[in-house]
């Protein structure tokens, strides 16, 4: 049974229908990539899983989110708070949204294990130092006593990962955790994060727009487009035999080593705005293979030779 099962959720904020039937599972020990361009609904999906949607005025109108056998939608705030941090941890894009600028780093990590694991102050500090060292940060003692502004962006993001791991969660939701960082630092942090998650057998929901990161880190992939799932499959199949034209085009947009000059073409048009989503398949205006059926009828997310895709015309 999946650790987290998101079943056909639809989300509205005011009159806007932002997510439409988003569905996926994450098993224990699995790294799931949630990939898409801006406006695809990646971060909103993370908010749903964290139970934070009401904070931004959103509402889940349909579907359910089952975590470890329990329905999360409708849970009282007290119970959600117990799940957040303890069993489901969040790593956001900007580490400063997770760190308090006027509290020493050590105290912030210690707090997670005193609060959620009931550790004593000394035990919590020992645990924090151990976590800092596991994230390959030099001189853990010095860092434990430092303030966030004394650290570089990459170091701060490692501290946020240490905080996420501190309560021994079962699921980590990482929303573009390395997007704000330089490439050499991004590569190191992805590597450390993947190692730690694998060692502990944790489930990771990795939200990213970067297909390189997906290929490097994930086991399975969900491709979102304009608030719907376009395709879901194993990482190997997503890159080797994408079923949805959007996935295929998205991969083709990344320049590769040795690619012939002039051969890089984008996807024509832009992601439609939530206020004027087209009828039928939302990718139809940008798709080379679109026909009348695509402009009139929403394609269902169906089983293909492998994985699921929402396309009327995918051959396999």
């Amino acid at each position, binding site marked *: 049974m999946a650790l987290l099962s998101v079943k056909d959720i639809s989300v509205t904020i005011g009159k806007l229908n932002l997510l439409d039937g988003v569905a996926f599972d994450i098993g224990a020990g699995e790294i799931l990539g949630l990939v898409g*361009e801006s406006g695809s609904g990646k971060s909103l999906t993370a908010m749903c899983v964290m139970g934070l949607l009401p904070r931004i005025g959103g509402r889940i109108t349909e579907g359910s989110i089952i975590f470890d056998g329990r329905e999360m939608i409708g849970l009282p705030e007290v119970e959600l708070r117990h799940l957040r941090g303890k069993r489901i941890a969040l790593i956001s894009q900007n580490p400063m949204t997770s760190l308090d600028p006027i509290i020493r780093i050590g105290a912030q990590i210690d707090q997670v294990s005193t609060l959620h694991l009931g550790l004593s102050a000394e035990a919590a500090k020992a645990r924090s130092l151990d976590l800092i060292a596991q994230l390959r940060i030099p001189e853990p003692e010095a860092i434990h006593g430092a303030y966030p502004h004394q650290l570089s962006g990459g170091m701060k993001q490692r501290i946020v990962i240490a905080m996420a791991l501190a309560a021994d969660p079962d699921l980590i939701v990482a929303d573009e955790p390395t997007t704000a960082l330089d490439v050499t630092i991004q590569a*190191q942090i992805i590597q450390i994060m993947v190692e730690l998650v694998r060692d502990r057998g944790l489930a990771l929901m990795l939200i990213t727009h970067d297909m*390189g990161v997906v290929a490097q880190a994930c086991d399975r992939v969900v491709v979102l487009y304009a608030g719907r799932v376009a395709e879901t499959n194993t*990482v190997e199949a997503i890159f080797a035999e994408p079923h949805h034209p959007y996935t295929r085009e998205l991969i083709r947009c*990344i320049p590769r080593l040795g690619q012939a000059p002039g051969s*890089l073409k984008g996807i*024509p048009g832009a*992601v439609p705005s939530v206020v004027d989503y087209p009828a039928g398949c939302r990718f139809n205006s940008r798709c080379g293979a679109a026909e009348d059926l695509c402009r009139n009828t929403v394609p269902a997310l169906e089983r293909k030779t492998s994985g699921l895709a929402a396309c009327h015309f995918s051959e396999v």
Partner: protein
Amino acid sequence: MESAAAMREGDLVRITGLTREFSSGGGLMTPRRTMRAVNEVSLDVPRGKVTGVVGESGCGKSTLARLVLRLLDATAGTVTFDGIDLASLSPGQMRKLRRRMQMVFQDPYSAIDPRYTIRRALLEPFQVQGVVQTAAEARATVDELISMVGLSPRMLSSFPHQLSGGQKQRVGIARALALRPSFLVLDEPTASLDVSIQAQIIDLLESLKEELGLTYLFISHDLSLVRYFCDRVVVMYLGRAMEILPGAKAQPRHHYAHALLDSNFEPDPTQRKVITMLAGEIPSPFAMIPGCAFAARCPAASDLCRRERPALEDLGGGHMIACHHPKN
């Protein structure tokens, strides 16, 4: 007489020993500290080619872009454009010359006045330059510019906030092209765009270059994009040029260039990488290091590297490297 083709050969821009210092502090409480954002960079930009500058934050690539257009004055060194030393020009002469050299910025939204319609934004360069146009000429100009970048003339009466990121960047490019420049500095023009739109913009820049015979200096943090788009690639670190690759296929030999290359994940799960951890992070540019700027993080660093700065040397064929122990 030289043939037209031969006259078009050679370097449009020559950069020699270019240095720019910034200082901070120097008040009552803090001692004055100086850093070199760009440190003795020499580089030629060949006509009709794309020269790429790649590096991470703080490497000086954006400062270099501004120095090349003299939006900033250099502390030392020279920039010549078509044989003219930029530092020798008066502000008036400089403004004239700017018709021939323009910049496309990373964030098109901040480059365009939000209260201007697209039409007015496209006509602004002519006002700044004091170019007088009749209403009919102005209409023809903006129509031509907007279609050149693949947008519909219907958008001319829109405001920037009504456009998507990709459309705004197209307007940014149209504005840069308004005065018919021969040289464009592209400072991370696609960094804030989605990948499907980034590829559109690169495709557009490629065809405009062919159509209009432009020369580009392309600044980016994305090595795979730079290697795709550029004819030559300059790798910068802490204000210095570490390696100049003569072509997209040239294999880098500098350890820093390798670290950049290794950090770039291929969109292919069968080619997963094991990342070698660089020690530490980019040091503060205020700490003036005597030896190689990369020595503290380099896996091959020796005492020599920490003591003596390697000079940029030619390995042949235009491949230049500043390293005592280049990788094979």
